[in-house]
């Protein structure tokens, strides 16, 4: 048996940051890294240019002729592109989360973090938050640019054509999708060895979800707005389940055992 040395030697004071503080530290560092990362910036910049061109080309014909009230063709088209410009940048959460979990593991930069006294929860939550925040930032920028472009190109009054309830649902959907991407990537990252595999699997599942949402969007006219609202609520519920499952299964012990 080992002699308990505590009574015979001075115990070294063990210090660590609080869990909340550690979550924020990890998230902030990762967010800054993602924002400075050239590939993420290039993707976000490309999407911004693409949406600008698409809107000018596709939205212009729909704007020429529209009734003054109700869900006009122009309003519906504007809402669809709001969905596109909001969702596309939120997909970067997958790349960032895959890099934070599988990528760090692959590069060996996860180990120094695991050896700190930060709890499993702090590391996991910090990494997920650090993936979601930049994705949301890009989505907000995308939507702001979209509204600005409509205002400058077609006039401020055209924004009034956007169907209010549908637009609110779309705006609520974007964080849910960013959460979904980050949580999904974190779950997959703990089961694969490389960043590329994590990103590919997560992106595939995200595309399936997008396809379902896109289909549902075009059926809103027949099914009613409630169907879209249920879908948004369903994705939030899915996020909660995914986050709980991944937080419970993500343990440094497991990560170490698989290395």
């Amino acid at each position, binding site marked *: 048996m*080992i002699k308990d040395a505590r009574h015979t030697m001075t115990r070294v004071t063990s*210090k660590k*940051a609080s869990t909340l503080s550690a979550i924020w530290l990890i998230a902030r560092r990762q967010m800054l890294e993602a924002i400075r990362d050239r590939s993420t910036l290039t993707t976000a910049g490309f999407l911004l240019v693409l949406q600008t061109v698409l809107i000018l080309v596709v939205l212009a014909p729909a704007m020429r002729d529209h009734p003054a009230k109700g869900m006009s063709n122009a309003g519906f088209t504007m809402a669809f592109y709001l969905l596109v410009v909001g969702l596309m940048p939120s997909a970067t959460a997958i790349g960032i989360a895959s890099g934070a979990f599988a990528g760090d593991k692959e590069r060996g930069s996860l180990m*120094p973090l695991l*050896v*700190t006294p930060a709890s499993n929860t702090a590391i996991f939550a910090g990494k997920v938050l650090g993936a979601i925040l930049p994705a949301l930032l890009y989505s907000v920028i995308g939507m702001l640019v979209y509204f600005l472009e409509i205002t400058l190109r077609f006039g401020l009054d055209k924004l009034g054509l956007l169907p209010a309830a549908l637009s609110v649902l779309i705006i609520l959907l974007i964080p849910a999708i960013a959460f979904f991407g980050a949580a999904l990537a974190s779950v997959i990252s703990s089961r694969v060895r490389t960043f590329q595999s994590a990103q590919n699997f997560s992106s595939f599942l995200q595309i399936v979800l997008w396809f379902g949402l896109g289909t549902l969007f075009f059926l809103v006219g027949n099914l009613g707005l409630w169907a879209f609202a249920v879908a948004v609520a369903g994705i939030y519920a899915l996020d909660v389940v995914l986050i709980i499952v991944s937080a419970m299964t993500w343990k440094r*012990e497991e990560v170490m055992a698989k290395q």
Partner: protein
Amino acid sequence: MINAHRLTRRFGTFTAVSHVSLHVPDSSVLALLGPNGAGKTTTVRMLSGLLAPSEGEATVASYDVRREPDAVRACVGLVTDAPGLFEQMKVPAYLDFFGSLYGMSPAARSRRIDELLEFFDLTAHRNEKMAGFSKGMKQKVALARALIHEPQVLFLDEPTSGLDPLAARAVRELIVGLKHGSRSIILCTHDLDEAERLADEVAIIRQGHIVARGTPTALRRQATGETLVQVEFAAPCPLTLEALQTVEGVNTAHFVEKKATGTLPSVPQPQALMLEYLTAQPKVVNPQVLAQLMTVGTQIVSVTCETRTLEDVYAEAMGTGSAGYMDHGTLLDEARVTTLI
């Protein structure tokens, strides 16, 4: 201080580490030697609070690795062969990030970062991103990160792997300095020379078990206690092996024919010869052997006595012991012939 008692770790049915017991007092270095997959890294991971032991117990800086892993991690520093940096960051920001996770105050972090940058000669690079650093510089940053919170215990897993000789020497000097700063250090290495130079104690681990442990000197002595004697001649020895083996205490005597290297094939070169034997009592046996050789007029160029190296002990522990002497002898032999020519 590190204490481990019958530490065991299983992954499913595979036992990576089996009943490992260690004691590393303050101000000392224990070198863990062993081939890849022997269990060195798993042992270090258990002791640094990253993996829970399946069996056994251990305390690190007086904290229990099983019950208080968070506290253990707060008191240890770990450096692996891969620096594992966030390479888009600059060194001060990187160290500040880790200092914050260890709960250090902004003032303490700032002071410590300045100290470490100066110590590791990184002050001139404080405004550069680490992506452009050499392997040696990255390893210095990894060491600085491991030391940011002034840990009582350090685990260095092949810290000089891939470093150029000067950078490796600097790291070794640092390890000696850290040891004198009242730290307990476990050094995992494949470099036997490094282990011999730095470690107060060496543990050789094989297939998860510690197969040899002791100070480098004691290990060498325990291995066989025999000395390798090499007698070099200017001309072929006229004495037969049978005659030499009549001297009591001479073991495994044999002649080594030297290879003539670095010469043109058409020019005949004299073939120098060398006698090798093992003896447990060189002071008694060598004078007798040399007297016999000189009686028959053998021209002796040199006599070399070699005690066993840690490499020999390691080879023996790994089950390839007998080859150790012969390989070493051949290498020395070639080197000397080249010098002669």
